């Protein structure tokens, strides 16, 4: 497993180098964005890095009534009260007990801050034209509602979340 990982990282490094070279040759393939990737229920998601404020361990969470069950509660991050959303429940997966890799990614859009509970965070990736693809328009399935676009690297595909939609309101109420 470790070998595999190392190999993967090596390949990825190679991949990145090649891409960097490509990028220097080809101006169209500049870095568009950086994304933070994280795992939730066997799936790798990503968030554009400008939305991420910090990543913290799971703190004490105070439950709040009258909210959907994917809003776990509110937490205190340096005297700021921030609501916490469980990504697993948000995307209809089963809840699992928190372990030492579970963490809260604090994301921020304008004046709204929300903590997202993820199983673990993994990496920061560059997004380029060459490894970025749109979600399919045809058969617009419900699942990609929060997916802004898809990034692919040697590890596989990562779904980049649309934070504005995730933190938006109306759609969420329906679910």
């Amino acid at each position: 497993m470790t070998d595999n990982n190392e190999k993967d990282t090596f390949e990825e490094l190679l991949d990145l180098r090649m891409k960097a070279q490509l990028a220097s040759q080809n101006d169209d393939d500049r870095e568009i964005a950086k994304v933070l990737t994280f795992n939730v229920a066997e799936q790798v998601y990503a968030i554009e890095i400008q939305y991420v404020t910090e990543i913290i361990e799971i703190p004490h969470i105070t439950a709040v009534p009258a909210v959907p069950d994917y809003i776990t509660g509110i937490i205190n991050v340096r005297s700021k009260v921030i609501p916490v959303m469980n990504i697993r429940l948000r995307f209809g997966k089963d809840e699992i007990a928190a372990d030492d890799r579970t963490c809260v990614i604090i994301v921020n859009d304008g004046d709204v801050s929300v903590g997202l509970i993820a199983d673990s965070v993994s990496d920061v990736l560059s997004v380029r034209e060459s490894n970025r693809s749109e979600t399919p328009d045809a058969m617009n399935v419900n699942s990609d509602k929060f997916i802004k676009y898809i990034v692919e690297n040697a590890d596989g595909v990562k779904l980049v979340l649309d934070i504005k939609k995730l933190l938006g309101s109306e759609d969420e109420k329906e679910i």
Partner: protein
Amino acid sequence: MAKIEPGMESMLDMYIFETSSLLEQLDEILIRTESANAFIEEDINEVFRIMHTIKGSSAMMGFDNLQKIAHKGEDLFFIIREKPELVKDAHFVYELIFTVSDLYKAEIEIIQASPEDFEPTDFSDIIARLEDAAKQLKSMEDTGGQTSVQPNKGAEQLPRESSAEGAMTVRVRFEAGCGMENLRAFLLLNKIKDDAEILACVPPDVETNSDTSAYIIENGFIIVFKAVEVTNEDILAVIGDAVNVESYEAINLPKPEEKAEKEAEKPTPLPTEPTAEKSAARKKDEEIKKAAGSGQKQSLISVNLAKLDLLHDIVGEIITTESMVISNPDLDGLKLESFSKAARQLRKLTDELQDTVMSIRMVPLAGAFQKMGRIVRDMKVKLNKNAELVLEGENTEVDKSIVDMLNDPLMHLVRNCMDHGIENTAEEREALGKPAVAQVKLSARNSSGEVIITVSDDGAGINKEKVLAKAQKNGILTRPAEDYSAKEILNIILLPGFSTNESVTEYSGRGVGMDVVKSNIEQIGGSLTVESEEGKGTSFIIKIPLTLAIVDGMKLKVGVTVFTIPISSVRESFIVGENRLITDTEGAEMIMLRGVCYPVLRLHKKFNIKTDVTELKDGIMLIVRAGENDICLFADKLIGEQPVVVKPFPKFLSHWNIKQEGLSGCTIMGDGTISLIIDANNLINTD
């Protein structure tokens, strides 16, 4: 579409703040002088100063429309300053200036709302009215047989220096309607003074005397200068290129006979002398201005409220962290003498720090109260009722955010007093043995962590039969009319869908009822009650907390959750014996205490919390007051009481109706965890 000049955006806040406070000052002075029906010198100077400052800063910000009005207002007061007795009984002047003040406020609101692109309102109408008023005053002045000598008017004067060798005399004309000609002239002087020696200019005192604008418009601005190192022609080019300069012409030296002729026209030989008397007077005025200015220069600074909020947050954070350190579980069982000593000292300091920060946010209610003076005054005129506003305890201080939110409710209550409370005619009042001039009283006082504000009138009072009949007609009675107590009847007028006045007037009864006032006050954690005695008057009593930010809370434990409930709403707590619970046919639980039956609300059921304490005898009961009713809350146990810093729920959670569930906010406790604050009023409403 107008845009704020680049580089001025940062000044906008300051401009808005300054202009708004100046306008309030203006209103206050006008109200005072109108009721006294005489302008004293200081007041005129003050108004003049206000107009002047507004004019200057509006011009600076590039709000030409605002600047023009202020300019005309200044002109008007220039006449008044010469002859203060003219405004005696000249109510149209007051009316006009009040309108100007209102237009200003409206325009500033527009600017504030969208500083990026706003449409400057066309004020030509009001400017014309101001001009008319000025003319009217002028004619009054003239018929008074005393024509005042206008400074520098008519006679053309050229300074003596113009005959100096190598000097050049230029007459500059500015673009028509550019405004603030004197300052533009001053700027022009500044521009050329690097390359030329300014020998003289007419008028001489453009920088300090704004009255010279009129002269410049009429006669142009005359500069006598001598170029240094460059040629006179270069200077002329600079002048020609200057902003707002329409044209310039070099003037030949007047011939001696022309000069003589001119001098003959003039009563005094020297050009500056006709105004000597005036300028002396002006100097005196300026001294007064300066004196007024220095009087206001208290050791005050204005601070952005956001910064204060930040400071407040940090202090809250320090206090939380402090308890985290001092009552750290790692210290359990250790004997730390000097640590405890240091900790006590720290606590004392942080307490002081907190008090100081809180006191920074406290502002006197005077500002909010004085605004009401304007409303009383306006309504007096419109409704033709004679009333005076009496202020009491206006120096009582409350949190800034509360003062801001009090404006609307106060305005509504004062309007109600004027419109519905006070008898329609003075005769009516005199027949009842009351003074002809009615009184609307605003008073404020502190009382144990609360501020009590009373808005009262000595009018007719509330007719209870009428209220009941009206309520019955509107179908808002829930019980037979006979069952209502006097107090309940009065409170009916605070219910939605009730308005006692038959006719809808301009001021009250615009569909915004007393219920809105009540809910506004409740929003800031206050309460509104009515007291009234028929024939004697009505009082509206507002009770508001001193500050929104910190409340004394009682901590309750339910399962693993800790709730905080404001102590002000807890009446008593007790442990209930067995078999005291009554269950009605619907399964609703009630409890009897000293002959009164209270409904029981189990917090763990209400908020769906798992707990082992489900037997009433194992937990604790709290009687809490919620609006007009008392209910009995059931929690696992009481933890204790503590002042807590109230924080609103994060914005993201406003997608859901948490407040409707009876929670008003949250607070961070000593151990860093969050406790939810119970709002008793809403706990019940949702049941």
